[in-house]
Every structure is written in structure tokens, then in C-alpha cells.
């Protein structure tokens, strides 16, 4: 692969890959790592693709898988910490409250919160992020590729190896589940 070919593939896909990886991992650092590794692997193996679209699908697949693995690892770690916290006889709400006030919400996932309006926005963004995270992987990935990768059903189907019809159904189920979870959350937060 020439430098020219690489440059054109990088320019066309880097932003999109970073957005997808970030939304799956919720971490800009992890997103940087997985995207870096994907391009590095492409160069290291001196890979040649029939078309730039094939290179794009390959990169998305690699980034998506690496990001999902990262998210799963982080989730396992969080559960282990939670288990330990519980074993100490402390209420789990403390862990959740602690994790919600971490810097990643303020800087990475949230919105500026200098005023009351900002705080509400941040809470709303955090609710949405949590609802998105809680979706089953096969639904979440389709929605993320659609919303943050700017991909159409055909492209998503090629990356995931499923039909366009299947993508359509998954996109609908993802939206539906997300709306349902957000409504449930709103009902819980209504003061009695």
C-alpha cells in the first residue's frame, strides 16, 4: 500500500472511526488506541483492498470489535469493584454515585454545567448515554454506526454480515428500546 493510498483511506475514515469507537467505549483515549491499532495493523500487514470501500468496511469491523472488547473489559472491572465494595458492607449506591460523578461524565460524555440549565442538560445526556450503553450489543452497534458513522443500511449490513432487512429491524428495535428506557427513567424521576 502506497503512502498516497494510505493517506486517502485515513482522511476518509479516521473521524468516523473515532466517533464510532468513542461512542462504544465512552473514552476518547480508548477510541484513539483502537483506531490507532486498526490503521497500524493495516500497515503492518501491508494489506491491499480491491476498493477503498472494502478498506473502510475492514477498518470499521476491526475498530468495532476492539471497542466492544474494551467496553466489556471495563464492565467486568466495574463489576469486580462493585462486588468488592459490597463485600465491605457498603451500600452499592455509593459506588454508582461515585462513578456518575467521575471526570469522564463531566468532560467526555456530558455538557457544560455551569448553570442549572447546564446541569439538566448534563443529566439528560448522561441518561441517554446510560440508556444507549444498556442496549443489547447487536442493537447498539447498528444505531451507533447509523448515527455516528453516517452509514446507510447497506453499508452496516456489509460490515456486520447481515441483510439490509435485518439492519432495518435492528435500527427500529434499538430506537424503540432506547425511547422506552428513557420514558421509564423520566417516570422514575418525577417527584411524588
Amino acid at each position: 500500500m502506497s503512502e498516497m493510498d494510505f493517506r486517502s483511506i485515513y482522511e476518509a475514515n479516521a473521524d468516523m472511526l473515532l466517533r464510532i469507537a468513542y461512542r462504544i467505549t465512552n473514552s476518547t483515549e480508548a477510541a484513539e488506541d483502537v483506531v490507532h491499532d486498526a490503521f497500524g495493523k493495516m500497515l503492518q500487514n501491508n494489506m491491499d483492498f480491491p476498493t477503498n470501500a472494502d478498506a473502510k468496511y475492514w477498518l470499521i469491523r476491526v475498530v468495532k470489535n476492539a471497542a466492544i472488547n474494551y467496553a466489556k473489559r471495563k464492565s467486568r472491572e466495574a463489576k469486580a469493584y462493585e462486588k468488592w465494595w459490597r463485600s465491605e458492607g457498603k451500600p452499592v449506591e455509593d459506588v454508582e454515585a461515585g462513578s456518575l460523578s467521575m471526570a469522564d461524565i463531566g468532560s467526555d460524555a456530558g455538557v457544560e454545567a455551569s448553570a442549572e440549565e447546564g446541569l439538566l442538560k448534563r443529566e439528560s445526556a448522561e441518561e441517554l448515554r446510560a440508556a444507549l450503553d444498556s442496549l443489547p450489543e447487536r442493537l447498539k452497534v447498528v444505531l451507533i454506526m447509523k448515527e455516528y458513522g453516517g452509514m446507510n443500511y447497506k453499508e452496516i449490513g456489509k460490515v456486520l454480515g447481515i441483510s439490509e432487512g435485518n439492519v432495518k429491524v435492528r435500527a427500529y428495535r434499538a430506537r424503540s428500546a432506547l425511547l422506552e428506557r428513557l420514558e421509564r427513567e423520566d417516570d422514575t424521576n418525577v417527584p411524588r
Partner: protein
Amino acid sequence: MCPDESLLSAYVDGEVPSPWKEKLESHVVECPKCADRVSGFRELDARLQQLTSPDAEHKLAMARARIQADLRFDIVDAEKSKLVSVLPQTFATEHLDTRYKRKARRNGSRRAGISMPVLAASVLVLIFAAGLVVGGKVLVNKKPQSIASASGTIQVGSGSMDSINQYWSSLKSDQGVTITMPSEISFEPIGDPVIMTYSDGAAAATVVSPVSSGTSTSSFGSAAPMQTSTP
């Protein structure tokens, strides 16, 4: 009758073709339930788009620039793997240093050192391999190979080590070299094998050609003399 809700979701995604798109549009205008569902999907999309904060956007833009800068080294590597490269050690070490520093920075790990005897042994193995390839005439790729150096590029014809030896001799005695074999060459067990031995006491190295027509000798101007001979 209302359409399946998955069609409304596909409609929001712009994935419904004509004429169904127009038919759906006219239904949505007349049906408050479907209109409500479509606006719910659109509102959700808008919220998802705003989920990434300006700060995160900035961080991702910085990440993009950093990755591109780091990968320049990998591009150089990928292009160099197509050449037989003979680089003065100082250049090679400097290049490796930059990559290790980058890896270390990203992984939070420390660079592992390689002792001089191991390094010297690696060079010997590489020279031995070069002797096998060139001396045994087992090069499948018959095109002349480029040899890159810090001072320029020299061309070496297939089956000859003379130009390598000449280049070698021109180096200072304390200057090391790295030989990288081209990735596209395939090896086949043809001809007589060559054994390369390291001689500590000799003043200069001697290369004995394995070609059956006779024995040719050339000298290395290296501080670590080496000798090749047919078995």
C-alpha cells in the same frame, strides 16, 4: 391501517424508496399516532447527535492528528520492507527509538534493552542468511535489489555480494549495519548451502564463494571480522 413501525424508523433514516416513501409521507400527515412516532424517532436522533460534548470533539480531533503523525513511521516501515536495506546503525537506532517511545507513551510501558552480544549475534545471523541467498543462488526474484543507505542508494545485481562488500568496506570500523531482507523474496532449497563463521582473531574477514567454478575472496573492513566458506 398504520404501517409497521420499523418502516417509520427506516423512513426517518431515509431508507424507504419511492413510491413507498411518498405514500408513507401522506399517511404520516394524516395519522397523529404515526406522526407522533416519527417525531419521537427524530427527536431521539437529534439528542444522540448532541451527545458528544465539544470537549470530547476537540479531544477526538487531537487524537486524529496524533495517530496520523505516529503512523508516518509505520508507512516508512511498510515501504522499506520492500527493499533490502543496509542502514548505518545510528540511523536505525534513532528510528527505532522514536517508535519505542511512542509505544511506551501509549502503553505506559518501558523499553526493553538488547545487549550488544545479542545484537551482534542477530547481525551475524542476517549476514549468514544473506550469504545463503546470494552465495547459493537461491534468489527466486531475479530483479536487481536496491540497497538503501544513509548516504544514498546502491544497486546490487542478483547473485552478487561484491557491491555489498564494497559498501561494507567503506564504513568506519566501529559502525554497525542492519540488513533487512525483502518481504517478497521466497526461499527455495536450491544449490550448495553456505556456512558463515565468526573468527575472532583474523584481521579481516574472508568471503569464499560457494559457486562450484572456483573460490573467490573478498575482505570486510569491519572490526568484527567474519568468514564464509562452503562446507
